[in-house]
């Protein structure tokens, strides 16, 4: 059963766990934070990969869900800090688990609303509409001053998780890593399930799916909502990592980056987002250390990848065939 892709995936998973632990005990907490960033972006991209990789839905607006997750963490924490009740007299909270749940629900609801309209269209319309809806939320966040507006919203103390000191880098990394692992397992289960079969078939041939009696629109909408939920949780983690949330989490650059991660790693591949995120973050870090103009070279590298290395890194290493 162990084919090349499985072995490769296991190796990536182990490396992503072992290196930060080693770095932590070598007294290099910065690398732990870097790995945390990789894990969180991976999770966000795993969410997008569900819509984009399995369903062929090129969402250029996933920053919306990432940002909503981030603001959920920021807003709940700020209310818990100030003691002011949220709407309906509900209090804020510092508990990550509650925050994740709320982020997931909020992300899911917004994904449902955006999907309801966007999924009536396809192709390039879908790309642009998801982008536009994300921009709408972005501008709302900028012009709505209650939670910091353009300046963003600080989280003064990282939120809490029962029995874990989240303030230290390594435990927080492990939380993020565990959530990424759960995300990957869910992705794999969904991809292999009846729903996953219908979703992947919808990408390949919508008419065929309808002709066997499965409604493609509802399959896609469900996938889009699940996808948004994953990405929203990642957003909440990201806000807690930086102890800060700002409209930049909602920006279209972030939506673009999430797509980049997936293409770098390999579209529709289980570990595509993880490999893509690792390469992207490390590249950013490495280029950033060499030159102030790292974005320029990052652009050149990305361009090279699209033009010459199709199928992403996982595709390069594990070969193209994967469909049974």
């Amino acid at each position, binding site marked *: 059963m162990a084919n090349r892709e499985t072995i490769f995936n296991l190796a990536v998973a182990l490396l992503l766990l072992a290196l930060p632990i080693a770095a932590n005990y070598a007294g290099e907490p910065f690398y732990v934070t870097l790995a945390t960033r990789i894990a969180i972006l991976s999770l966000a991209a795993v969410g997008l990969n569900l819509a984009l990789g399995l369903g062929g839905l*090129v969402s250029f607006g996933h920053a919306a869900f990432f940002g909503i997750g981030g603001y959920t963490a920021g807003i709940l924490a700020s209310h818990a800090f100030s003691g002011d009740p949220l709407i309906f007299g509900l209090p804020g909270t510092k508990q990550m688990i509650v925050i994740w749940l709320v982020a997931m629900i909020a992300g899911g609801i917004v994904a449902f609303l955006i999907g309801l*309209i966007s999924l*009536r*269209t396809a192709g*390039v319309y879908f*790309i642009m509409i998801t982008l*536009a809806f994300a921009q709408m939320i972005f501008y709302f966040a900028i012009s709505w001053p209650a939670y910091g507006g353009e300046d963003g919203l600080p989280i003064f103390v990282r939120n809490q998780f029962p029995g874990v000191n989240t303030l230290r880098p390594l435990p927080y990394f492990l939380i993020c890593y565990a959530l990424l692992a759960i995300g990957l397992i869910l992705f794999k289960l969904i991809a292999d399930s009846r729903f996953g079969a219908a979703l992947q078939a919808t990408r390949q041939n919508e008419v065929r799916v309808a002709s066997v009696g499965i409604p493609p629109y509802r399959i896609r909408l469900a996938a889009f909502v699940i996808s948004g939920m994953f990405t929203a949780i990642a957003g909440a983690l990201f806000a807690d990592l930086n102890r800060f949330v700002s409209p930049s989490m909602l920006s279209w650059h972030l939506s673009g980056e999430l797509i980049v991660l997936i293409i770098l790693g390999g579209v529709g591949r289980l570990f595509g987002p993880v490999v893509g995120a690792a390469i992207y973050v490390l590249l950013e870090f490495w280029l950033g250390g060499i030159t102030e103009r790292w974005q*320029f070279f*990052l652009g050149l590298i990305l361009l090279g990848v699209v033009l010459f290395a199709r199928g992403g890194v996982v595709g390069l290493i594990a070969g193209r065939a994967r469909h049974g």
Partner: protein
Amino acid sequence: MTIALFLEQLLNGLQFGVMLFLMAAGLTLIFGVMGLINLAHGSLYMVGAFACAVVAAWSGSFWIGLVASLAAAAAAGAIVELVVIRRLYTRDHLDQVLATFALILIFSEGTRWVFGSIPLYLDIPTLLQGTVPLPGGSRYQLYRLAIIGVGIAVAIGLYLLITQTRLGMRIRAGESDREMIGALGVDVATLYTVVFALGAALAGLAGAMVGAIQSVQVGMGEPVLILAFVVIVIGGIGSIRGALIGAVLVGVTDTMGRFLLPQAMQLFLPPSQAGLIGGAIASMLIYLLMAVVLALKPRGLFPAQA
């Protein structure tokens, strides 16, 4: 609120719309003919603005700068088409998105490398400085009126180009059947480069003209690009007429929304809150407009024949 203020805002909306049209026309043309989604269109807008600012500062003439902006954007467009874009026509939209996203990084950082992070300034040409009277007693900037005029001229010019010329005939042929025009012996590769350069020149023109009202800086093209996307989605991708109507609709809706909504909110909210809530809703208004249009017509107001 006076009639004069209302009229002024309406003209501002029209001017904004016209500028969006210059961006959207190129985008929609490139998509209609080549089937390409070009995120880097905003970079060409930026190139036009920088070229105009630099050449105007060097030569002392806005007009030479304007010509330079057209030339620079068209040249940048042609080079990008020859080196990168033409490898993407047969690719799916995902690859096109990623490649043109990479181009944005290259353009933005490259421009910052050359010109630094400090915005450049571009003065309104002497000829167009000053104001004209509006009915109701206030005055309106002549330069903004000129932008509206240029936009209308470009719209007419594009209409004539597409309906009356050989190039236009080929563009129309390319929109209806991409394989056919090759079979008819049209040099498709050159046609595509020309169309791309034309779209780039229009974006550059828009950048140069707006550069004199706002500052010229890296990243200036991105908000405009996204609005141009909204415009062509509303208008129907591939349709120049749709781009024109969509652009005016978006320009006027956005400007008038920001102007009127906070005032309307004052009818039932205290002024401070009305400003905030009205402003926040106004910032989302065009996206709501887009959502409504798409809910009714998923392929936009003027869907191009597919």
